[in-house]
């Protein structure tokens, strides 16, 4: 009989919280997070963000674009998204921004000042109807204009599901290439925020990743969000752009002021390593960063490679497969429930491509297979402890 590996907590001697440093609860949402055994956790302490001029100069993505020395401005992710929207409206007179409450700046303030700057014909409130917003956006895009729609929370995108999945995604295909909704970008805040409960916390990316014709993008930082959003708006396919709302204010970087685009469908290697490949996207990367720091502290000599997928559909199989062929091990993590989550797709494809190189089963650290529970958020999320335990189980297999 093949061995069935059930989740376990073997190797109890390694405990990422030592007995002397267990006071207090730390999470990525806690800005005053206490260090765990000397490691400072959370977005505010992350080495993944380019907060200084040197950091910007060393930013690989900006180097590739040749703009690592251009002038920058300190922005949080909300401001960098606002900046991308402003640039797209300045450079494309056919671009319009619309959705619920966007006119006064939006409930998260991502569309602030756009109505004043570009007028009520180009940035406006719609009635409260997500199916209407998506359908309207498809019409705008099909007429050759640029539609940038906001769905106020990803949890509320489902009335628009039919329009997005059956209409936006399939218009080019069903019309023999004569029409398309390629000019449509739907932005929506998603993922956990610490107090959102069932209907302000969901990560619906896997539903859309199952839809040929759509592009699904999830940014992790201000610099990346600006480049990916400008890319999404100018892309010739309908894009669902899911913004981790917990990062709107907590993630701050020096963002190039110029107009730049980052490629879609490309993953980014955030940290090179040789023993295990760890894949994530959005705010989960900051949890993975901390889990990796703890693993490398507890298992000297072990190095982990961290990859940010950036685009969920179409995803960068090549970069992940190359990495796993090097390390022989893979752990994937996302907040969405485990069953039929996007990690399942990555695991299936990588087990196929890297079968002879794999030295352990592929690990998945995901949200529980339950709705998102308000007071049980810390038990639901793939937090530092869970990621640490899974990476450990995979490297010690």
């Amino acid at each position: 009989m093949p061995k069935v590996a059930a989740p376990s907590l073997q190797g109890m001697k390694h405990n990422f919280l030592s007995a002397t440093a267990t006071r207090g609860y730390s999470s990525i949402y806690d800005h005053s997070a206490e260090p765990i055994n000397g490691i400072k956790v959370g977005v505010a302490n992350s080495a993944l963000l380019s907060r200084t001029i040197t950091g910007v100069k060393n930013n690989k993505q900006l180097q590739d674009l040749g703009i690592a020395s251009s002038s920058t401005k300190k922005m949080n992710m909300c401001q960098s998204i606002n900046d991308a929207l402003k640039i797209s409206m300045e450079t494309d007179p056919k671009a319009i921004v619309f959705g619920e409450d966007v006119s006064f700046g939006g409930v998260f303030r991502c569309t602030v000042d756009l109505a004043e700057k570009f007028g009520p014909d180009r940035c406006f409130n719609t009635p409260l109807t997500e199916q209407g917003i998506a359908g309207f956006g498809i019409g705008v895009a099909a007429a050759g204009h640029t539609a940038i729609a906001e769905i106020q929370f990803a949890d509320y995108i489902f009335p628009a599901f039919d329009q997005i999945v059956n209409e936006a995604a399939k218009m080019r295909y069903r019309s023999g290439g004569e029409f398309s909704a390629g000019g449509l970008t739907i932005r929506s805040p998603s993922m956990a925020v610490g107090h959102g409960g069932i209907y302000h916390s969901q990560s619906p990316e896997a539903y859309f990743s199952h839809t040929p014709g759509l592009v699904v993008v999830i940014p992790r930082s201000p610099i990346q969000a600006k480049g990916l959003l400008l890319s999404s708006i100018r892309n010739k396919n309908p894009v669902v752009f899911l913004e981790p709302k917990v990062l709107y204010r907590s993630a701050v970087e020096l963002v190039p002021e110029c107009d730049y685009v980052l490629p879609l469908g490309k993953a980014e290697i955030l940290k090179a390593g040789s023993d295990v490949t760890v894949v994530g996207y959005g705010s989960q990367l900051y949890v993975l960063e901390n889990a990796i720091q703890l693993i490398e502290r507890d298992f000297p000599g072990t190095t982990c490679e961290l990859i940010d997928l950036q685009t969920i559909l179409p995803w960068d199989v090549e970069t992940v497969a190359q990495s796993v062929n090097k390390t022989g091990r893979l752990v994937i993590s996302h907040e969405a429930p485990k069953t039929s989550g996007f990690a399942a797709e990555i695991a299936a494809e990588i087990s196929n491509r890297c079968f002879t190189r794999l030295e352990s089963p592929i690990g998945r650290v995901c949200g529980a297979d339950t709705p998102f529970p308000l007071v049980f958020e810390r038990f639901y999320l793939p937090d530092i402890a869970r990621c640490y335990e899974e990476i450990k189980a995979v490297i010690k297999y």
Partner: protein
Amino acid sequence: MSIEEMMNQCFSNHLGHGKGRQMPVHYGSKSLNMYTISSPLATQIPQAVGSAYAQRREGKKKCTVCFFGEGAASEGDFHAALNMSSTLSAPVIFYCRNNGYAISTPSTEQYKGDGIGYGVETIRIDGNDVWAVYASMKKARDYAVSNSRPVLIEAMTYRVSHHSTSDDSSAYRSKKEVEDWSTRDNPISRLRKYIEKKGWWSSSDESSAKIEIKSAVLKALTDAEMLKKPEFKEMYTDVYDELTPSLKEQMDFTRKLADKYPDYYRINDFTR
């Protein structure tokens, strides 16, 4: 519902009927025939039509009442529901509270027309007049039950407070507008003036009631806040009628993890 029950829900403690899964003010009560509130907008409206249809089939002279705001009435579900209630002859009362704003969006940006078709009997009332609300609801119920037909009530009012604790409405409306409404047309002071004029209420009744109610609310709030959260296994129950093997496995793993890192997971905040 008692103040205590409402506070227990608000604080997601282990006595709350929602088992800590939803945000505050998402009430429900099986004993009061009140479905649990869901955050997505307007989803309850077609459901109310289905419920009313089932009541008609039971022949027990019952009806369903469904509450929503003028913002929710823009959702597709609202239009589907009104059409279905009319074509299927469902004894349902749609109570639309038109308070002028859907978060920041004024109702003038929500609708251009006036009056809704679908062959549903409709009445627009002064939603700040408690007697108008009572009389129209009573009349609507009689009509819905005796004719097995839907009724739509549009109650005109104004949202004096912010949309939520995370909203600052001064970003999209003037303080003066809010002050005017709360002084000029306040449903609570209008009712007070009426009952004072009738000799049913006095300023001393008013001040003692204020003290009494305030202390009851504060006590319920403090009590509810002190209570522990529900047991962590409640995260996994009610997803299905019974735990699936995969949920059992996930629950067991979480228990082991919580036992290993009790402080990290603050397990003392939860009942065991």
